[in-house]
């Protein structure tokens, strides 16, 4: 949900509105000035060039005055304008959140289009020509990839894979149906409904089909923008969103097919057959390219332990290269990007440092956010720019046909799909799927790409496309939220992902695999199990650095839970006389001892005796219960998981535990001193914080500060659980066994003896939030993030 700043009554609202208006006018006036000055100053630059020439010619030329202050806009024009546009986009985003209730009613995409319209209108109003901002190259190579990468990298794999069949059917068959239905009927209308002399009757069948294929694709940008705000349940979200991503292959093929055919003019069966083949090539080829680059990226990340700073760069570069490489061969770049992001993610996240992870996350969100904003603004501007050719019949028929085609397609396909699904799609689900088929900027850019000579009716097409986009984004986008409420569609369950769920998921996976084996059927679970085994045995060893490759996913998940909870506890339990240390949770983790950075003595420890501390640690370790809910999908506006949004019962439970801790001051345990032969010795277990830096204050760092990274995203794919025993490995690791507990960094590694309770009193460790450590924390860059 967009975070709302506090607004007290109407004064805040007015202020916000006023501010936004000011921003809009400011920006557009600057634009106008920029465009105006660009014309004015070309003579100036020519003049100054001339002057320079004469200066070169004669050194004795002292007649001209030295220009103390000169205006030279031409040099900076392009970067300046780009920055202005981006600034406008960002300020708009700011502005929308200042106006309190606007974001509730109107989805952001609509507002941005309106802003674009305004800006375009102002520019045109002052007589300047509106720049053709939504250039297809810009769109496809600069604006679109960040959004898709963001979607692909954070794609929830398990729901996606479980519903893959449904998604594919919607994407492929649905899009084909839409394209042919709309194209065919439009042709019919054009031929029949109008007089033979009008422009419409000159539109050929192929052109209509091409138009149909452009307009029929559900747009991921628009879907993301709208669906993000309505928080429907995961199934519907992944269905519509997955469809919008995967139909790119179909769109690419159909577009090129019909473009080719329109150019040549004849259609043969062979060409049709080739078209079908090319679909498979495009789709699978795109995925293959993506997987290849993903593996490369994962492999590269294995070696980045010494240059942590450029780790995010690899992720971005490889993904972008995957996209571009796919585009070279006319394969589906979107699918390449998705495949690349999804494939590389588990391995990269196991390898990179906490800060790199945060960087990647934030950069992706930032870029995709800005991209999305810019796309919608440019849509508005491009609408003003034209060129338009409004044709009532064409446009209205298009809009109606799109709607009808979508509804029929969804209903028909669901009827077929439900025969194969276990969790059937209800009527409500079908309605949301149909209603959520938004068109967006991809359609416009594809239309923009059409050449005028082959397609004299290009302007009609563009106008119709824009109208459909406006209709879907405005009408459907605005009304989908109230409709979701009205129909009481299941909302996204903010369920906590508990350790129980994790355990039982794996258990059930095994159970079902076993049952399938008994039945002799090689089904879904069987192959998934095989894939997991293969993954664990070969792939992880190659792609994950060091010993983390053997860490079972359950353990990683568990650590993450504990860590988050510990942070929570520290954060909110400050009123109680606890050492603000969460060392107990750390006892579960492998630590690589690190030389102490500051030899200062421990400080800020309350006066608790050693036994009490031990007890507290034990209780904390074993009783930390508050689980952090995992963001299954991110909202563009906030990356913060509200630390206080868990339910009241948890709060109560936690307080209970606090009292327990205070009450129970018993004997010390030696639980801390567990020798562990887990095979990942040099690695650290990480828990990455889900929140912004300001959600947690940075505690003062002690000399032996353990730092914990809370990994938010790694347990997203529970299907990558690998539960094979590695008997050999366990034995080998004997001599490397480290205590499960944290050793004080001052102690060298040979202190592996199990009985480490003596060190307990030395180990006053504080938790430190790692999401935004200061620059002084650079020494923590490498590897050993001691919890």
């Amino acid at each position, binding site marked *: 949900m967009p975070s709302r700043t506090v607004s007290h009554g109407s004064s805040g609202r007015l202020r916000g509105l006023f501010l936004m208006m000011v921003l809009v006018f400011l920006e557009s006036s600057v634009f106008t000035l920029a465009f105006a000055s660009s014309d004015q100053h070309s003579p100036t630059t020519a003049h100054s060039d001339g002057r320079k020439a004469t200066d070169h010619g004669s050194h004795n030329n002292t007649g001209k005055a030295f220009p103390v202050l000169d205006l030279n806009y031409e040099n900076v024009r392009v970067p300046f304008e780009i920055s202005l546009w981006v600034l406008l986009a960002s300020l708009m985003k700011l502005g929308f959140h200042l106006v309190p209730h606007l974001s509730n009613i109107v989805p952001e995409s609509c507002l941005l289009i309106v802003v674009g319209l305004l800006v375009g209108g102002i520019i045109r109003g002052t007589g300047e020509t509106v720049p053709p901002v939504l250039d297809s190259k810009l769109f496809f190579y600069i604006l679109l990839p960040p959004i898709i990468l963001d979607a692909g990298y954070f794609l929830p794999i398990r729901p996606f894979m*479980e519903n893959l069949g449904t998604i594919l059917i919607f994407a492929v068959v649905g899009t084909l149906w839409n394209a042919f239905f709309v194209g065919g009927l439009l042709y019919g209308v054009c031929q029949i409904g109008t007089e033979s002399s009008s422009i419409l009757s000159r539109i050929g069948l192929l052109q209509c089909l091409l138009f149909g294929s452009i307009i029929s694709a559900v747009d991921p940008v628009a879907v993301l923008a709208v669906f993000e705000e309505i928080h429907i*349940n*995961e199934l519907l979200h992944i269905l519509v969103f997955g469809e919008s991503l995967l139909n790119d292959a179909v769109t690419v093929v159909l577009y090129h097919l019909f473009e080719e055919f329109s150019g040549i003019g004849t259609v043969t069966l062979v060409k049709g057959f080739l078209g079908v083949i090319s679909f498979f090539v495009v789709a699978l080829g795109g995925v293959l390219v993506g997987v290849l680059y993903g593996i490369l990226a994962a492999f590269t990340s294995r070696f980045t332990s010494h240059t942590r700073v450029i780790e995010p760069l690899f992720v971005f570069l490889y993904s972008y290269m995957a996209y571009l490489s796919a585009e070279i061969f006319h394969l589906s770049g979107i699918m390449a990007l998705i495949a690349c992001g999804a494939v590389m993610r588990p391995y990269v996240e196991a390898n990179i440092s906490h800060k790199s992870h945060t960087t990647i996350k934030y950069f992706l969100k930032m870029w995709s956010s800005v991209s999305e904003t810019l796309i919608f603004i440019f849509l508005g501007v491009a609408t003003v720019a034209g060129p338009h050719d409004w044709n009532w019949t064409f446009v209205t028929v298009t809009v109606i046909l799109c709607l009808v085609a979508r509804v029929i397609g969804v209903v028909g396909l669901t009827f077929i799909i439900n*025969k*194969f*699904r*276990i*969790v059937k799609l209800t009527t409500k689900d079908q309605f949301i799927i149909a209603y959520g088929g938004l068109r967006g900027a991809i359609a416009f850019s594809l239309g923009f790409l059409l050449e005028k000579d082959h397609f004299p009716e290009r302007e009609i097409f563009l106008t119709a496309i824009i109208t459909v986009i406006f209709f879907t984004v405005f009408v459907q986008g605005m009304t989908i939220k109230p409709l979701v409420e009205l129909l009481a569609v299941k909302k996204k*369950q903010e*369920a906590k992902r*508990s*350790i*129980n*769920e994790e*355990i*039982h*998921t*794996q*258990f059930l996976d*095994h*159970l*079902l*695999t*076993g*049952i*399938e*084996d*008994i*039945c*002799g*059927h*090689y*089904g*879904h*679970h069987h192959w998934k199990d095989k894939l997991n085994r293969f993954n664990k045995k070969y792939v992880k060893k190659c792609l994950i650095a060091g010993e983390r490759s*053997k860490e*079972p996913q*359950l*353990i990683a998940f*568990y650590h993450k839970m*504990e860590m988050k909870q510990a942070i929570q506890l520290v954060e909110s339990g400050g009123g109680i006389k606890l050492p603000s240390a969460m060392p107990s949770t750390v006892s*579960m983790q492998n630590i690589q001892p690190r030389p102490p950075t500051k030899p200062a003595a421990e400080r800020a420890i309350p006066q608790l005796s050693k036994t009490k501390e031990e007890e507290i640690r034990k209780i904390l*370790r*074993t*009783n*930390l*219960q508050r*689980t952090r809910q995992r963001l299954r999908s991110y909202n563009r506006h906030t990356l913060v998981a509200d630390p206080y949004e868990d339910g009241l019962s948890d709060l109560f439970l936690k307080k209970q535990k606090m009292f327990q801790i205070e009450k129970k001051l018993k004997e010390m345990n030696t*639980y801390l001193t*567990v*020798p*562990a032969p*887990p*095979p990942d010795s040099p690695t650290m277990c990480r828990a990455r914080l889900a929140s912004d830096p300001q959600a947690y204050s940075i505690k003062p760092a002690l000399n032996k500060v353990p730092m914990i990274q809370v990994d938010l995203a790694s347990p997203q794919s529970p299907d990558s659980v690998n*539960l*094979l*025993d*590695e008997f050999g490995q*366990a034995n080998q690791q004997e001599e490397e066994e480290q205590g*499960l507990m944290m050793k004080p960094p001052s102690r060298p590694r040979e202190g592996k003896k199990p009985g480490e309770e003596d060190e307990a009193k030395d180990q006053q460790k504080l938790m430190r939030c790692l999401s935004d450590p200061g620059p002084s924390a650079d020494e923590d860059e490498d590897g050993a993030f001691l919890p």
Partner: protein
Amino acid sequence: MDQTGFSSAHLLRLYDRFECLDRDNRGYLSPNDFEAVGGLAMNPIGGRIIDAFFSSGQDTVDFSSFVRILAHFRPTDRNRNKEGTQQELPNSRTRKLKFAFQLYDLDRDGKISREELLQVLRAMLGLQVTKEQLQSIAERAIQEADLDKDDAISFDEFKKVLGFFLLQSQSLVPDRMKRIPPLRMILALTCSGVLPSLVHLSPSTETMMEVRPKSRDRIIRALQVCRT
């Protein structure tokens, strides 16, 4: 057969599979037969699954029990009205969960105690983790789920913890148990040498396809077996 809710074609396939597993053609299955199934050996909870087929005390499974157990895994019929049935249908969600629960709860005391959970975790995670790690995980799991503070997870708590999660996912039904469309059933029964059905590809299906004349007899036989 009505108890299990399987259709005839399903039964046929299961009977084939039963016969396939029953290599000595004794008419019942023993644990050895189950262990011969390849995947189960590698499955961490394979032993438990096998044990689930054998009700207490017996060491043989006849076809009706076989089918009855597998009936738990049929897809839940959402709209079937249960009026008049005292018992729940074997494939209702509760029964599925109960089945899974029983796999945890080996001593059948109705609760998953800490030790039982530890055993499951040990089986699933193998030797890669230490005892203390396992204990922490088990501890945490119990604390999360345990609402009546008896230090064990009862069936109701189990249901509650998993309830939402399982509603959303399709995870409780293996592919084999999905309903076969009538068309495919007809194909399966009347044609031989036809391409095996696209979804259900298994050795037993293929053998079924070949033996056309016997198919009707087999159905009858299977049904008879079931009714006993």
